[in-house]
């Protein structure tokens, strides 16, 4: 900039300056227009995260809250513990086990919603356009009801004296009620039911504009049904599948109500573990640390899957 000012101004330089000034003004306007959005991200996104980050490096207060002295105990505690009974520092798998259970359940939920959701999305996309909205409406309809109420209704259906058991016993299929409620299967069914629309909608969006004539073209070129599926349908719907998986996996990891209501509360999930630290556990730093570790793991997994997705796209491209 400095040498531009020293040199005598020529026409083209004037123009250049004017363009630069204009670009600068534009940038300023853009920044100004972005301010509300940035402000919201800052206040409601970054600020709470920073608080969690700071708290995770402090010591727990006697009755909840934090003591303002630096400590990495919260993170050490996640993997190691002073033995309850002889005070040696040893590896502790309790929290990893809880994380493992939550991840396992979330991944199963993701697979379940994908297996159920893909055919549904494909089915809707293959309907004539004027029918599709009615189908989408039917998919989103349960979402108008609160999650707690939907989960509770599920409980009424599968419990010992619930709808399924009573119906089966009336029909004479079973003599005594099957114990379906308060099992891992009940939790999985509840999660799949809750998150199914999150899988259907993005896949539908990616298939919506799909030209089904391409399938016929594939068959004309002697592709088998499986080949058509692998080489045409899957690549076209990949963005939808990836988005759907992320949309299901992430909230399923933090699921709180469903495991609590349908699982019977005998086993901890990540969500319950974190909540406990801020209540009767009186260990806010550990709660913050556990929440951040969960976030980091999800973020890394997401980045890896995005990168893998991008590479795949390049190869196809």
């Amino acid at each position, binding site marked *: 900039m400095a040498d531009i000012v020293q040199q005598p101004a020529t026409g083209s330089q004037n123009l250049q300056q004017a363009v630069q000034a204009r670009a600068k003004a534009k940038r300023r306007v853009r920044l100004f227009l972005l301010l509300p959005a940035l402000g919201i991200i800052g206040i409601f996104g970054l600020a709470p995260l920073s608080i969690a980050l700071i708290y995770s490096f402090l010591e727990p207060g006697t009755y909840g809250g934090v003591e303002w002295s630096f400590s990495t105990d919260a993170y050490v505690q996640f993997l190691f*513990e002073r033995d309850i009974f002889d005070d040696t520092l040893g590896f502790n798998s309790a929290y990893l086990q809880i994380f493992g259970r939550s991840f396992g359940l979330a991944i199963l939920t993701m697979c379940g919603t994908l297996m159920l959701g893909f055919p549904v999305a494909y089915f809707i996309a293959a309907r004539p356009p004027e029918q599709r909205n009615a189908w989408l409406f039917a998919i989103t309809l349960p979402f108008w009801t609160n999650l707690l109420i939907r989960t509770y209704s599920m409980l009424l259906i599968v419990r010992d004296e619930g709808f399924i058991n009573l119906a089966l016993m009336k029909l004479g299929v079973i003599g005594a009620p099957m114990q379906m409620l308060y099992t891992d299967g009940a939790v999985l069914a509840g999660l799949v039911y809750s998150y199914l629309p999150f899988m259907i909608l993005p896949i539908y969006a990616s298939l919506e504009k799909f030209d089904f004539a391409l399938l016929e073209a594939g068959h004309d070129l002697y592709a088998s049904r499986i080949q058509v599926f692998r080489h045409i349908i899957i690549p076209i719907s990949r963005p939808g599948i990836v988005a759907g998986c992320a949309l299901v996996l992430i909230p399923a990891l933090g699921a709180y109500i469903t495991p609590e209501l349908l699982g019977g509360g*005998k086993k901890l999930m990540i969500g319950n573990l974190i909540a406990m630290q801020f209540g009767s556990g009186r260990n806010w730093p550990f709660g913050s640390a556990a929440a951040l570790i969960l976030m980091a793991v999800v973020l890394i997994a997401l980045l890896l899957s995005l990168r893998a997705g991008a590479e795949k796209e390049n190869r196809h491209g």
Partner: protein
Amino acid sequence: MNSKLFKAAVTSVIALTAVQAQAEGKLNIYNWGNYTNPEMIKKFEAQYDIDVTLDGYDSNETMLAKVKEGGTGYDIVVPGDYMVAIMVEEGLLAEINASEMDNFKNLDPNWIDVYWDPGRKYSVPYQWGTTSFTVDADVYGGDINTLEIVFNPPAELKGRINMLNDMNDVINAGLRYLDYPRCNSNPEQMKQLLDLLLKAKDDWRTMDYAVIEKLTSKDVDLSQSWNGAAMRARNDRPTLKYAYPKEGFTGWMDNVAVLADAPNMENAKLFVNFMMDPENAALTSNFARYANGVLGSDKFMDAEMLDAPEIVMPADAPAPDFVKPCDQDVVELYNKVWTRLKQ
């Protein structure tokens, strides 16, 4: 200073301001959910011309976490016994000197010199009860007054048990069964406790606060329970019997207290005094189904409350055990045991 004169002056000043400035007549109550009789609130509003707002919480710890952050705008909270002790220590409660209030004379003397607030400087009784368990006597016909059927259940109760999803309630019950002291930091005893809980957990179906619903839906036949909840469940399932185990059971009391930063301090004190009136205490009991600590309130209570086996303890039952707040190292140990139990 002549305290009678002072009181009269204060009362008239309050009365005047209440009449003059309606907008200032406000009171914000933060109480456990589904625990406040709307009739009682209406009566208070009419009597003092004060607008009451009500907010709810589900555990002492939730309330503490919120109040600790400060600036909640709440005037009245209803902490449990040990939580009063914690909040006094943390300087969160206002010293209201309840013993100088008009209605203090109505209090049952047993509830005045309590460990969490000796002499009642900060709080007055709201409701009190016990935490034990309740069993369907048709399913299990044997002796129910023992923790044996919780920790080593007979065949008919295996897999038919709900425990409260509460670290302290479960651990305390286990410690009583093993006859070890509460707030236990003895590693050997805690290890035995963990083994006991892990073994018993296989026979438990659920660990959940929703006691009434678990029992009335017949998901379980035995549930750890508060006495009032047991009474409400018995309404729907008359075969339920509330146990007074010989090994002991928890007693608790929730208390009306005023926050140190209460915006409507004088109205809050009016409410504290109001709650010690026998008729008003009875209104709460009739709603929440627990006993209160106010003498003469039985006259106003529903008839079925007066002889309910959940409220009137048999003469041979052990005295309820009011458990003090445990030290931080004990809480850490309990946390680890609890996490191991549910990992």
